[in-house]
């Protein structure tokens, strides 16, 4: 029920924002800002997908990989957690070309944010896997399952549910960090806003719309994650007595 009210909230918020905007003479800014929002959403989705993939790979390598893979995973996690996303973005965008690697700005944006959030996500995955009771591993051994099978079929599905709320937070962090990409020539929502502001000086209108748009996207993420959680919970617990 909470889920539905949140969803309704997001929709009402968004349409109300649009309605107010179009009547109060905000209308001229809407198309340009929507264009920017679309880019922001694109980067957010791409970054989130990459972050999840990297987090799973890094966590598995760190926990169960052979020594070299383990070191690689540790290095990745420490480097990307220990330096700022902005520096990572600049490094991929300005430094890599010196080594002959020239990437599209959009690719750089998705890569930098995905790698950055993936490093935090790896710890989320690790925590959730470690939180699965030891008895589940032992039952898997008693049924003669190889470790990879036990991990894939028994442990990860149970860890998955515990991962969803922290991932929701990380996705929203990633959304907020997308504002950085305007610094590498991408016309995202923040970039569009600044650009319009510089030409029209209608600061109040523009940044109010931008605020509402970011908020609407983050509410959508929250709603999506709650929905995912309710589905996963249905499959696993059904009251959960163990």
């Amino acid at each position: 029920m909470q889920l539905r009210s949140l969803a309704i909230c997001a929709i009402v918020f968004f349409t109300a924002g649009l309605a107010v905007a179009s009547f109060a003479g905000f209308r001229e800014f809407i198309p340009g800002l929507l264009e920017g929002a679309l880019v922001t959403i694109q980067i957010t989705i791409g970054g989130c997908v990459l972050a999840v993939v990297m987090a799973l790979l890094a966590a598995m390598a760190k926990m169960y990989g052979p020594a070299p893979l383990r070191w690689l995973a540790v290095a990745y996690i420490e480097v990307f957690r220990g330096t700022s996303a902005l520096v990572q973005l600049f490094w991929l965008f300005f430094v890599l070309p010196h080594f002959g690697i020239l990437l599209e700005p959009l690719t750089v944006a998705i890569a930098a944010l995905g790698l950055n959030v993936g490093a935090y996500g790896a710890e989320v995955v690790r925590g959730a896997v470690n939180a699965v009771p030891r008895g589940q591993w032992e039952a898997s051994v008693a049924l003669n399952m190889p470790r990879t099978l036990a991990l894939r079929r028994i442990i990860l599905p149970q860890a998955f549910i515990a991962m969803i709320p922290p991932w929701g937070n990380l996705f929203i962090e990633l959304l907020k960090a997308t504002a950085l990409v305007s610094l590498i020539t991408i016309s995202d929502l923040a970039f569009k806003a600044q650009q319009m502001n510089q030409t029209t000086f209608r600061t109040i209108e523009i940044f109010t719309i931008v605020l509402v748009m970011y908020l609407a996207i983050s509410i959508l993420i929250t709603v999506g994650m709650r929905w995912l959680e309710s589905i996963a919970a249905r499959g696993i617990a059904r009251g959960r007595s163990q």
Partner: protein
Amino acid sequence: MTTPMVKFDKVTKRYGSLTVLDSLDLEIAANEKVAIIGPSGSGKTTVLRMLMTLERINEGIIYVDGEPLTHMEKNGTLVPADQRHLRRVRGNIGMVFQHFNLFPHMSAIRNCMEAPVNVLGMPKAEARERAAELLDMVGLGDKVDQYPSQLSGGQQQRVAIARALAMRPKVMLFDEVTSALDPELVGEVLNVIRKLGSEHNLTMLMVTHQMGFAREFADRVCFFYGGKIAEEGAPDEIFSNPENERTRQFLSAVLEAN
């Protein structure tokens, strides 16, 4: 002489400076039902866990059906077993835990199909049919689609027994499988074990605090004390006429508690 189904050959297990099992020798014949009793901390669970390969041993060798489990032959000598060898030999062994350890994200029947399908490579339809038979045997024919959290403790433990049997083990290990149950649920689980004993060719090794059940069901009782078997023998001898002072003390303490 026939080969024993399970053989502990001078097995020692230490945790740090604590010697939990001290050069244990134990042979169990095929089809034999052995009850393990003893005070808390005497190493009963550890014996089962070593046999299930959940715990490494420090010294000695464990054999299953004549084949070394903890070791493998390499150039004529025995070296510690690798993962592949462990998996091959421990396929003969199944275990039921005190806290059931069912997979909470799978229904009862999926719990019983998972390993046959993905470990033995059994076709799904066959695994389902067999799982249904086993659940029927443990009296849960009408609960196949329930999830563990929808079942009582006794029912969960019976699913766990069916799940272990689905792998067709030769040896079944039971570690205090009724200890976590409400008293009124103990009987239904013990009945299933009785049924297994009479209808299946299984070697059984059970740690239990149910002295009445041990006496009636087991072929042999081993009393563990201080990392060794302090006394063993037929249930009637041990329970009516214990020779060891420790055994006497333990039994009278247990009787008093009941």
